[in-house]
């Protein structure tokens, strides 16, 4: 499958807080979708594959609005925030096998003006990662939301490897710095210092407010097709060298994992690099799913950019900033651009590979990595090249 499929269209809405988008959940995603389709130089009706984000829309509704009269491939990958990147794998397989010609992958939500991301917990087991396990064994103790789950892992990492608050802060600062170069970043114009970071309120120790991603309104989308079809389209394609996804074990609960740092990415990353025929050293930038700062550090380790336990030192000294050894989240990420479920990370990767990232362009970017993280540690990774 290597280099047989590519991303040929990207689209985004404005990313907002304040009064919000003023659009419906579907309308917002359709705006991003139509922009991605137009970016590819396609007509809406040419889309014959749609991969909606879990619970945020149906292929039927997208198709009925876009006029996709030949919809053949409608699949949703249920991996929470790891879904968009994992969807690239199915999309690539679909367009190379003939199951579909042009696959649309949309994602987005009114995460600020509608039900906040933080409020999406309830006893409705269908909406909880872990389902009845979370309901019966986590919720009674007040462990109800993602920053709390992951703070338990972050604390353990600090204990085992001496990871420090300032190292988590270095991640928050890098994302914020990059956001200053991105006109669509919600945190543009709001620079942050280490003192600001350390002074931000502790929400779920060791997570402070600024360790946590934003809640925003916004949507992003992309279009995947085969290399052959891409030749007839107007934009320079971003080639999918490889995609892999994985689940932690067990995936439906995290307290009893023998190795609490072994996540889906631990399995997926080596597989993705092997299939792509490159190593972490060959990578020019990484867009890493940054729901919280520690998850960035942990994924940097599990991808293999450094050894486990060395992530804290790795993220210091500007190494993950533009101009550093491995620029991470050049758009500002979920922490400082917007929380678009990681779809914005793929869009930014494509922009970097096209060489159109403006002020934040990574010089001569040739190979980029994008990761996804969901639920209790589901993982996905795509290796893309120009």
């Amino acid at each position: 499958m290597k280099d047989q499929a590519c991303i040929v269209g990207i689209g985004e809405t404005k990313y907002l807080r304040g009064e919000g988008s003023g659009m419906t959940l579907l309308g917002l995603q359709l705006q991003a979708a139509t922009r991605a389709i137009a970016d590819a130089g396609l007509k809406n009706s040419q889309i014959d594959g749609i991969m909606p984000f879990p619970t945020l829309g149906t292929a039927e509704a997208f198709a009925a609005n876009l006029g996709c009269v030949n919809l053949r491939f409608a699949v949703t990958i249920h991996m929470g925030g790891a879904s968009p990147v994992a969807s690239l794998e199915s999309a690539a397989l679909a367009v190379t096998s003939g199951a579909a010609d042009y696959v649309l992958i949309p994602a987005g939500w009114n995460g600020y003006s509608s039900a906040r991301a933080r409020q999406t917990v309830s006893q409705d087991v269908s909406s909880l990662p872990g389902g009845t396990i979370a309901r019966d064994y986590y919720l009674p103790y007040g462990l109800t939301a993602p920053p709390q789950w992951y703070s338990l892992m972050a604390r353990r990492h600090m204990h085992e490897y001496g990871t420090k608050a300032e190292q988590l802060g270095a991640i928050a600062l890098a994302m914020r710095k990059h956001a200053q170069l991105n006109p669509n970043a919600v945190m543009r114009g709001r620079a942050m210092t280490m003192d600001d970071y350390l002074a931000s309120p502790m929400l779920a120790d060791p997570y402070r407010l600024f360790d946590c991603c934003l809640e925003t309104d916004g949507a992003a989308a992309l279009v995947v097709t085969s290399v052959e079809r891409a030749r007839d389209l107007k934009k320079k394609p971003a080639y999918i060298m490889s995609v892999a996804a994985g689940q932690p074990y067990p995936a439906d609960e995290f307290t009893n994992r023998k190795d609490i740092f072994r996540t889906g990415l631990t399995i997926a990353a080596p597989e993705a690099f092997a299939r792509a025929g490159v190593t972490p050293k060959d990578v020019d930038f990484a867009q890493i799913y940054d729901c919280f700062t520690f998850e960035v550090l942990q994924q940097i380790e599990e991808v293999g950019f450094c050894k486990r336990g060395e992530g804290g030192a790795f993220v210091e000294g500007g190494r993950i900033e533009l101009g550093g050894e491995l620029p991470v989240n050049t758009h500002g990420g979920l922490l400082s651009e917007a929380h678009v479920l990681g779809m914005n990370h793929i869009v930014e990767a494509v922009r970097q590979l096209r060489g159109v990232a403006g002020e934040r362009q990574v010089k001569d970017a040739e190979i980029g990595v994008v990761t996804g993280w969901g639920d209790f540690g589901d993982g996905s990774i795509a290796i893309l090249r120009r």
Partner: protein
Amino acid sequence: MSESATGYTKPLPVLEGFSKDFYAFCKQGELRFQRCKSCGAWRHMPREMCAECGSWEWEWAKSSGRGEVFTWTVVNRALHPAFRDSVPLAPVIVELEEGVRLLSEVQGCTPEELKIGMPVEVVFDEVTPEISLPKFRRCVR
């Protein structure tokens, strides 16, 4: 559920299947986990079969109730309305002597005192007439 009768308004486990058994033992003051009758492996969360050896045969084996804090957090801002008046609260993962881990909390211990490795033993908090939640208190090793 007698939530309104008792005035307890936080989320409670739903007593069905394995959780019904698990919490029934807790109500009797016993912490029990599944143990495989074939290979002897302890497990939590409850499962239909042993992931170690594939056996369907298991029993509810009694835990010593003793263990240590594996990791902890302190929640200062509740993200669930039922816990709004209970912050700070400190969910911990306790690793029991049998090797299984339980998400719980340590009573009689301020967040500042929590430490990984702290020895703890189980106590049962009768939050409603039907449900006693297993919690922990500090102990000497």
